[in-house]
Each structure stands twice: as structure tokens, then as C-alpha cells.
């Protein structure tokens, strides 16, 4: 009985402490990030990025293009996955984000039609929350892919994702943790291609864990980005997406409506006009393989294209 009391008291202390700290005076002195920008004050924009190098490069490009127009910019880079940063976009903690038409649509609604560029863009525009808007998409695409090693592809003569059907039961699929439940992940692969893998292994967002796991045979198939230089470097094979499951994935700036002034819109659309899949892939190569800074690569892009 005495023990029980002690445990109860301990729990109460823990609760009380949490309560104490929630009354922390610091909380009130924090910058009120959700406060709407007053129209009179100078415009300031917070650019965010997800936790993979390409997203960071794109965010740096957006930030640089806006800075060149004399707009105050700050960045919040490497903000995990959509599941974390979309709420931050909705709450106004982040104003501007480099997104992908198909991926974001599928995130907002599992049934979104994203099979080609036009449908993906239309889906995104209709699904975005009222406070957000999508500007002009770029020609640059970076798709998710199901990728296997050359050896696996040869052994099972795999060319397309459809070819996986007979062997999926023996394969472990690797991808970012959110793939387990996402429409654009395990459930979607089952629905679209009828693929049921032996198991799913949560790795990183198409980063070194995924590459290593694929190389050393922990997984037989994995999610990598089509712009990823490590596909070429390791002689991996990305299987063809015959049913357009991953759909169109054009890079597109998504921004708070209140911040999308004509000046901002023009600056970002100018970036989109210059972005192609090849330039994007070569920038990712510079950052991931040549170990250059994302900011440096972004600045180089801006200056070559007369944007910054």
C-alpha cells in the first residue's frame, strides 16, 4: 500500500512539474510566430525545407531569389517530413516551401489524381488549404521510385514495378518511415500494383541508410528519388512506373496567400521558369557527391540565371 502511495505521489510530482514548466515565463517572451504580417510593415518571409538535400537546395534558391528583390528572408531548414512541416505551414510558422505537385496532392488526399502534370497541378490547387497557394510549377521533376540493385534486376528480370508482382512476397521494401501508412507508399503500392511485400523496413528519406540497406541486402527494393546521384553511382535500377503511381512531381513553390505579393510571386515564378530536371539533378549531385554547400550551389544557380 505504501508503495502504491509513493508511486501515486511520484506521478503527481511529475504532473505538477510539467504544469510548472508549462507556466514557463519563456513561453510568453517567444516571438509570436503565428502573428499575421501586418500589411504596412516590411514583408518578411520564412522559407522552410524538408530533411533531404534537394529540398534544402530549393529552399536556398527561393530565399536567394527573394533576397535579391530586397525582401527580408529567414530559413527553417531540415524540418523532417510533410507530417511535421505541413502543420507548420498551416499554422503560419513557415511561409514558403518547395513542394512537389503529385506528392503534396497525395498527402492532402490519398485519392488525388496525379497521373500527369496537368492533373497533379489541378489536384494540388483544389486541395490546398485556404490560407496557402501554389505558384507556377517548374519543369523540374523529382519522382519517388522503386529502385533495386542491378543484380536483383537481372536475377528476376525486373524492368517495371509491375514485374515485382510475382517476387514481392520475398522482398523487403525499404523507405522513409512515413511510407508505411502513406497513400504514396505501402498502401498505395498494394492498391495500384497489387504488391504485397514480405516486410517494410523504415529507413531514412532516400538517404545513406536507404542506399546502404539496398547495397548490403537488408532490403531488396527501396524508395529513392529519381534525381539521386547515388542511383547512378551504385548502378541501381529504378523500375519504370507504368501505372503512373508516383505521378507527376513538378517542383512548385507553395506559399501563404498573405505573403504572395506580386513582387514575391514574380520572383518565385522566375525561378520556376529556369528549373529543369537536369539542372536539379546536377545541383543535387554537387551537394551530395561533391559535398558542396546547398547555399553555395543555390547561389550559383541564381547568378547563372540572372536571378540573384
Amino acid at each position, binding site marked *: 500500500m505504501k508503495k502504491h502511495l509513493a508511486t501515486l505521489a511520484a506521478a503527481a510530482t511529475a504532473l505538477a512539474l510539467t504544469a510548472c514548466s508549462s507556466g514557463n515565463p519563456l513561453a510568453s517572451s517567444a516571438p509570436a510566430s503565428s502573428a499575421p504580417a501586418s500589411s504596412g510593415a516590411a514583408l518578411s518571409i520564412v522559407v522552410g525545407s524538408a530533411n533531404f538535400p534537394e529540398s534544402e537546395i530549393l529552399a536556398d534558391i527561393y530565399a536567394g531569389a527573394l533576397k535579391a528583390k530586397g525582401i527580408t528572408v529567414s530559413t527553417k531548414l531540415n524540418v523532417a517530413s510533410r507530417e511535421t512541416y505541413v502543420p507548420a505551414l498551416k499554422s503560419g510558422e513557415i511561409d514558403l516551401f518547395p513542394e512537389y505537385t503529385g506528392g503534396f496532392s497525395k498527402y492532402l488526399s490519398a485519392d488525388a489524381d496525379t497521373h500527369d502534370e496537368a492533373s497533379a497541378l489541378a489536384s494540388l490547387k483544389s486541395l490546398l488549404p485556404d490560407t496557402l497557394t501554389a505558384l507556377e510549377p517548374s519543369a523540374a521533376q523529382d519522382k519517388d521510385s522503386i529502385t533495386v540493385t542491378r543484380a536483383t534486376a537481372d536475377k528476376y528480370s525486373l524492368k517495371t514495378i509491375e514485374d515485382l508482382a510475382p517476387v514481392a512476397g520475398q522482398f523487403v521494401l525499404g523507405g522513409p*518511415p512515413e511510407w508505411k501508412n502513406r497513400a504514396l507508399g505501402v498502401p498505395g503500392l498494394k492498391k495500384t500494383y497489387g504488391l504485397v511485400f514480405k516486410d517494410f523496413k523504415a529507413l531514412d528519406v532516400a538517404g545513406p541508410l536507404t542506399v546502404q540497406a539496398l547495397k548490403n*541486402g*537488408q532490403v531488396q527494393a527501396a524508395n529513392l528519388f529519381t534525381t539521386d546521384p547515388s542511383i547512378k553511382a551504385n548502378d541501381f535500377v529504378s523500375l519504370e512506373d507504368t501505372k503512373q503511381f508516383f505521378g507527376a512531381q513538378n517542383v512548385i513553390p507553395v506559399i501563404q496567400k498573405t505573403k504572395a505579393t506580386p513582387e514575391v510571386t514574380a520572383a518565385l515564378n522566375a525561378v520556376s521558369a529556369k528549373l529543369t530536371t537536369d539542372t536539379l539533378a546536377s545541383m543535387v549531385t554537387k551537394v551530395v557527391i561533391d559535398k558542396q554547400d546547398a547555399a553555395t550551389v543555390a547561389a550559383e544557380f541564381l547568378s547563372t540565371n540572372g536571378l540573384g
Partner: protein
Amino acid sequence: MNLLWTWLSNPENWQGSSGIPVRVAEHLAYSAATLFLAALVGIPLGLWIGHTGRGRVAVVNLVNGVRSVPTLGLLFAAVLVVGPLLGGDIAFLVPSIFVLVLLAIPPILAGAYAGVEGVDPGARDAARGMGMSSMEILFRVEVPCALPLIFSGLRSAALQVVATATLAASVSLGGLGRFLIDGQAYRDYGQMAGGALLVAVLAVLVDLVFAGVQRLVVSPGLSPIRSARRVRTRAQLAANPT
């Protein structure tokens, strides 16, 4: 709270290869392997230092240095360096256990060393007077007397390891950290809170087991309950002497 309960009470979460029992077992396996390896290094080294008084300064500084190594950074570095050298599932397991072992050694080492060093000199002299050899003094007098502190070192290492083994999930391993990482990835607060709660409960249970063993092993003459309090602070001091 509701989310937490919904997650915990969903029978689906208690089944299969990613169910709670499997994750708890994985978590315990990582923690046990870590503690075993850390004790294998930390206890003999601590006893030796406490017994001989040699290498004290060097080890204390080393322990302080190790403590200040950020676990996440070390884990990432270890995975990048060691991972490609190994094949299969151990490619990520070995670096993770290595990092956890490094984390667990300082408290274990400090406990063992402070325990032996703190043994009443009178007891030591008496043993010597009885004609015991240096090794006999160590194992028949110093170690038994140092047990409360050795245990306190083990227990604080266990707490730390159980709480930190969650990091293994950030490099694709299992354990309760899976619930935190996956919960974060798909914004399932119930799963995250559930995972955190399970970690805390597990840590407390492990501590209780150690407390039970300690009660069985430690001589009642050392009144473990009373000394345990002073002892923990002393173990902290030992790790960070002024």
C-alpha cells in the same frame, strides 16, 4: 491522453512483428547487450583504478570527455563509417550498440571506482593484517563493500541506456524508438506518447529488477537503502571531481 489510450488499447498494436511485445523485447535485447558489454569494460577498469589508485586522473578526464560526446552525432558518424564495412542487419546494429556502450561506460566505471576507493581504510588494513593478498583484498573485501556503489552505477547506466536506446530507431533498427520515429513521421501523437510511456515504464521496471538483485547480493551490513542516497551523489561527484 485520449490518443494515448486509443493507441494503447488497440489490439492491433499488440500483435505482429511491429507490435508492442516485439518492440519491448528488441528494446530489452539492445539494452541488455549494451549493459553487458559496458559492464565488461567498466567494472574491471573501475575496480583496478579504485584498487591501485593508478590512472585516476586520466580516466576521470576520459570519462568526462566521453560524457560530452553528443550521442546523435556519434551514432550518425558510426553508421556512416562502420555501416558500409558490414553486411546485413548488423550493419546498423553494431554502430548503435557501440554508441550505447560508450554512453553506459562512464556511470558504471565511476560507480566501480568510487565504490572501491570509498571502502573504509580500516577494513582494508584489517584484511592486510589477516595476511590477505592484494587480489584477496580486492575480491573479498573491497568488491563486496563497493557493491552498493557498483549497483548504483549500473542502475544509472541502465536508466540512461533504456531511455537512449530509442535513438537506434533513427537508423532503422527496432525497439521502442520505432514508435517515436514512426509516430513522428506520420504525426501519430498517440503512438509517440505511448512509445514514450512504454520507455519510462520499462526504465522503471528495469530499475526495480536491479534494486531486487541488489538487495539479494549486497551484504545487509552495508545498509544499502541508507547509503544508496549518499552514494549516487558521490558517484556523480566521482565522475566530475572538482
